[in-house]
């Protein structure tokens, strides 16, 4: 167990260093100059040079990267003219575009992305498990076939298509909802939920299809196992056979699926945010990439990579806790 955690930690460190190095490498290899974008129109050579110096772009890329790592571990000082500002560890630096600390930029947008994904996670887990269960118990009947069609449709529909179709139906034709505008949960809980309904549904259609399929196959597999035959032979009512015995076996693998799917969810959340104009992390990634805002992109890559690895580790641990047969090495 300890060995497992240590090894995970080691590979995590290597991974994060490699990832951020790749980001710096990519930015170094490209011809676009962030300073030109910062400087705007009618910018002369002197101004450009001073911006280069201020952003540290006049240093070699290896030095820039080293400072980035240094800031991460120990914090670093930024001097802009006479005053020096200290950025405490873990310091992700300052945005080239807005001069705001990257960490606070991310923190600012995190609630939006969390609202979107957490709400949708609950929805898609419940929907997926329910549909999978029904389709497994009604195998080959009409309900099962309808659910199969939903699964195929859901898996094949990119979020930006299903989202647009939902918008067309609920905002355009039925006019039940307005175009979503993000309202913080703390300000107006009802408005928060009302505005997030369509984004939640958008993510749910895709992700619940995955869950339905997994619950379906898991359920059928468990139902054909020996211990189910045994409890049935004992004369347990079918409700309890399904509810207490079969469902547990079928649902255990789902724990790790949310972790494995984490990367895909991130990407789909990003597309959903862009479609609905939600000011979350996804929008920040697209904007900062287009603006060649190196510190923000590097910071976001680091954070996302960290989240993916942590999610996977947490899933492994949970899995081992639920299923005693699993041994972590």
């Amino acid at each position, binding site marked *: 167990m300890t060995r497992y955690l240590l090894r995970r930690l080691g590979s995590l460190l290597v991974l994060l260093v490699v990832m951020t190095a790749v980001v710096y490498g990519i930015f170094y290899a490209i011809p676009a100059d962030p300073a030109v974008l910062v400087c705007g129109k009618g910018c002369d050579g002197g101004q450009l040079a001073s911006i280069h110096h201020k952003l540290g772009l006049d240093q070699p890329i290896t030095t820039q990267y080293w400072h980035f790592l240094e800031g991460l571990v120990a914090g670093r000082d930024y001097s802009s003219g006479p005053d020096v500002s200290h950025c405490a560890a873990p310091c992700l630096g300052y945005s080239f575009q807005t001069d705001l600390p990257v960490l606070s930029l991310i923190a600012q947008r995190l609630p939006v992305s969390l609202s979107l994904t957490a709400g949708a996670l609950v929805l898609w887990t419940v929907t997926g498990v329910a549909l999978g269960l029904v389709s497994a118990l009604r195998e080959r009947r009409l309900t099962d076939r309808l659910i199969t069609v939903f699964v195929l449709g859901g898996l094949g529909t990119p979020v930006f298509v299903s989202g647009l179709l939902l918008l067309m139906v609920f905002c355009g034709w039925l006019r039940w909802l307005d175009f979503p505008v993000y309202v913080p949960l703390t300000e107006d809980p009802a408005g928060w939920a009302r505005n997030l309904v369509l984004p939640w549904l958008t993510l749910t259609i895709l992700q619940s299809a995955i869950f339905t399929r997994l619950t379906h196959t898991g359920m059928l597999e468990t139902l054909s196992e020996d211990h189910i035959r045994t409890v049935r032979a004992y004369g347990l009512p079918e409700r309890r056979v399904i509810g207490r015995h079969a469902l547990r076996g079928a649902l255990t693998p789902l724990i790790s699926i949310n972790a494995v799917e984490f*990367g895909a969810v991130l990407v789909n959340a990003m597309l959903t945010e862009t479609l609905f104009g939600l000011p979350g992390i996804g929008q920040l990634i697209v904007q900062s990439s287009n603006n060649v805002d190196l510190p923000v992109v590097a910071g976001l890559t680091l954070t996302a990579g960290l989240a993916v690895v942590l999610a996977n580790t947490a899933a492994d641990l949970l899995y081992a806790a639920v299923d005693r047969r699993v041994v972590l090495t």
Partner: protein
Amino acid sequence: MSEVLAEVRDPGAAVSGSPARARQVLRRLRSDRPAMAGLIVTGVLVLAAVLAPLLTALEGQDTTTFHTQLLDSARGGVPRGALGGAGADHWLGVEPTTGRDLFARALYGARISFAVAFGTLVVQLLLGVAVGLAAGFGGRWADATLGRLIDLAISFPQLMFAIALLAIVPQSFPRPVLLMLVIGLFNWGGTARLTRGQVLSLKSRDYVAAARLSGASPGRIALREILPGALPQVLTYAAILLPGNMVSEAGLSFLGVGVHPPASSWGQMLSTATTWFRADPMYVLVPGLSLLTAVLAFTLLADGLRAALDPKASLRGRR
């Protein structure tokens, strides 16, 4: 001994490539109605994309000409008439604010979509098979290192990197080629994992041992004995990557880092259609349903192929 030699000469036959097996797979595929529907729709769409210049000439339109006389300037440039201005001249209507022909733009979008999906597949297969083969065949250290790399490639949110990369590569670089490279470069993990598994199971077969005993070099064993045996499974799996690649291309174009105007792509059309879903639903439906139809048809076909090869592994969970 002669049996062993026969196997050595045709390693594929020992695994899954025998004519009887192929006939069985074809028969299963033919009796699979959803898969056959997928095959037909896929065929029609690919043919339409290839013949795009001919079909648009038949319609008498092109992708770039503005038809502003067809737009209602009082309503912000929405096409006049029902169904977004669809009719005999413009089969699927015209784009709002520009009046460009939607049929032509969607058709040329299909070309981009299919070309990028297939090109990406080539990149994925080359990378995935090479890494998988090396991991499965290269011994303990190679397997451990490459195995980690494969895990990473599978779990990482690649699209994030792809956006950053696409946003900063100069516009002069041909966009479709760049899309193939970027999507392929970030999505080869599944192919590699599958190839590795196949290689590991083939490595212990008798015919491979026979080849080794007869003095074949490791490189020869890997490329001539093991690879042909692993390929049928890998290629079947690869078919399921195609619709995924189409979605990736559409997604990147939707985010504004894919294909740039005046070239058209379904994703890019959808991204401009976002603000028109109320005033001009046709503008959403044309690229949206095109993408949906294509993705669904490719998925059904690929799933049917997989089910024919291994009935237990189907998406539709038949048994």
